[in-house]
């Protein structure tokens, strides 16, 4: 399955883009998505490790399975206020 991941902040500026696509295998858990993101885009791997995935606008547990149509976002270090 191809997963489209939204990027923001340092991740977006490091890669120069606001989203990426990754292919994942049978395990579509958020844990697997993060591992695949870090492998595919080593420049942001440190951010991916400390960041969290949001699925459909909610922080998702590592076991959460990503399904087709879900909106997936990588939420790294935020800096509002």
């Amino acid at each position, binding site marked *: 399955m191809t997963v489209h991941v939204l990027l923001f*902040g340092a991740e977006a500026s490091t890669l120069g883009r606001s989203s990426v696509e990754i292919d994942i295998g049978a395990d579509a858990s958020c844990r697997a998505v993060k591992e695949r993101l870090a492998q595919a885009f080593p420049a942001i791997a*440190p951010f991916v490790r400390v960041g969290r995935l*949001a699925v459909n*606008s*909610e922080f998702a547990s590592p076991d959460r399975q990503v399904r087709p149509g879900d909106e997936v976002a990588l939420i790294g270090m*935020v800096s*509002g*206020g």
Partner: protein
Amino acid sequence: MSVTVIISDGPLGPLASDTHQHGAGAVLCFEGVVREVEGQGRIAALDYQTYEPMAQRMLSAIAQDLIARHRLIAVHVEHSRGRVPVAQRSFRLVIAAPHRKEALLATDEFIDRLKRDVPIWKHAIWREGFEPPEPTAAA
């Protein structure tokens, strides 16, 4: 028990004149102002990027949680998206509570959680000639 959350473009305007919240003995308003000096550079503005509707939902959820745990009466939140020049306001939190202590605790906790959990990012627009050295990549 009311919650309002507003994310709007550019600097925040002045606080709209508030209506009285029944039972409130303390009203605390925190405003975040864009400072000129950040680290070793001088900035002209901050650009805020928000991930919506998640940012809005998270701000509401934090407000609801604080109302329940600190017995607040009302929480009103405003945050800017886009460009906010130096000396302008980018964030406002107004808490009405029966007493001072809950309002102070809730304000501190709200801002801690905003800075940890709410998907909003800022990016400095440096003043010409005042850019700091490129930061080294995190490792």
